[in-house]
């Protein structure tokens, strides 16, 4: 699948897919990488070292620092794939250096799939 490069880099790993948007501030714990938003489909799941797939960001603009914090704390996802990356996530992944691609048909990716992300060429492939 071909998309748009948001933040460069390459990664390969297991996908964790949310059909709902993710707000990082108040949504994911920057110390543990665990989703803490009540009632979120991924509540209680950990995004660390996964390929995190979700349609778009939502909520507070502090989310960028949470993404940066996840990386600094060593609990960040390996890469992020979106349908549409909005500015909060984009700023976060650029600062943190997490590969990120958007404009991807994320319906085709399921949790547990092994995915390769080549953000430099804006491609996402299921292995």
């Amino acid at each position: 699948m071909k998309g748009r490069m948001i933040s460069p880099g390459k990664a390969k790993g297991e996908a964790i897919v949310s059909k709902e948007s993710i707000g990082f501030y108040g949504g994911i714990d920057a110390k543990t990488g665990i989703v803490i938003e009540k009632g979120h489909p991924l509540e209680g799941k950990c995004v660390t070292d996964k390929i995190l797939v979700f349609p778009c960001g939502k909520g507070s603009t502090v989310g960028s620092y949470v993404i940066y914090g996840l990386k600094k704390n060593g609990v960040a996802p390996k890469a992020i794939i979106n349908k549409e990356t909005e500015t909060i996530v984009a700023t976060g992944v650029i600062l943190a250096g997490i590969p990120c691609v958007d404009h991807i048909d994320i319906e085709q990716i399921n949790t547990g799939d092994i995915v390769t992300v080549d953000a430099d060429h804006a491609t996402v492939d299921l292995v």
Partner: protein
Amino acid sequence: MYLTQEEEKILDGEKGDVLERMFRLLTRLGDIYGADKMIPIGSVQVAGVSYKSIGDPGTEFLEDIASQGATVQVLTFLNPAGMDLENWQKIGFPNDFATNQLRIMEAFKKMGIVVTSTCTPYLAGNLPRFREHIAWSESSAVSFSNSVIGARTNREGGPSALAAALCGRTPNYGLHLWENRQPTVKIKVAAHLDFTADFGALGWYVGKQVKNKIPYFIGIQEANTDQLKALGAAMAASGAVALYHVEGLTPEADLVKTKGLEPIDVLQKDINETYEKLSSGKNPDIVILGCPHASLREIQQVTDFLKGKKLKKPLWICTSRMMKEVADRMGYTTIIEKAGGNIVADTCMVVSPIEKMGFKTTGVNSGKAANYLPGFCKQEVVFANMKKLVEAQL
């Protein structure tokens, strides 16, 4: 993206390491979102101020930038901090938290940022004009400035707003362009909106459904700026709404195209159900008002209501330092304190560590606060209008 010679020089590192790094972030965002050039901005509001929000990684990031002597180019305000910056001891904020919070404020001050911390800069001395380009980041302030004032800003992340402040520019894309400010969904409201909290409920319900679309409201007959503030804040929290229009009330409503929009109806039962959905608890340990920061009118309303009464449990009204000054002068603060409440400035319930201060259930009249408190402050929530919340504590 077209860059001027001066801008090329920043990217080549001629203006130092920090500016190069910050400008690179801006140009990359500009490239992603199809900006044709950089545009000068009138003011900035930087989010990511509370130690609780940004933690050690954010604090170190800010100290690093400040230590290299970079200063902001335009009037720059801050989002709420994690505590009242003057009365934190009296109100009971933890010591270790305060130490880190003050480190953050020092770093911002070094950069020339006005260290007044509020999500309502437009009430506190940073007021953009219609069509002015700005780079603001707190999501409710973004919504208010775009929608109610008609200024132009994208939803900036904390770091991208800081970068814009240091460079005096922002990439020209998104909501800076008129064609992107057109509504994409019509909201037909057929419900009573009496209290500010009703607007919060409406906003939460709509934001959840429309995500990052641009709503055009019809059927809202009257709303003051406090109510529009509550509406926008809730939509930006449950969704990612950065701009909305209200027929007859907001400045761009008569100028945009509204034909053929997909309609969504909001009925009284949707508002009632939203109150139920957002109320996970009973019997609050504390009532916290002022999300977004209370206006002077909102402080007056609470003061009038509390005069000569005694509260059983704590009550905070969160506001900006500027509003607090006037409340002090007018004697509102004394009336509220006599009733057992506090006016808390510079901070709010979402970004302060209330879960570490012994509170488990919080009463709020804000759709935005009701949205965030369960996740970020581990609170059970009672969401109701101000009178109901306060009456229950008398």
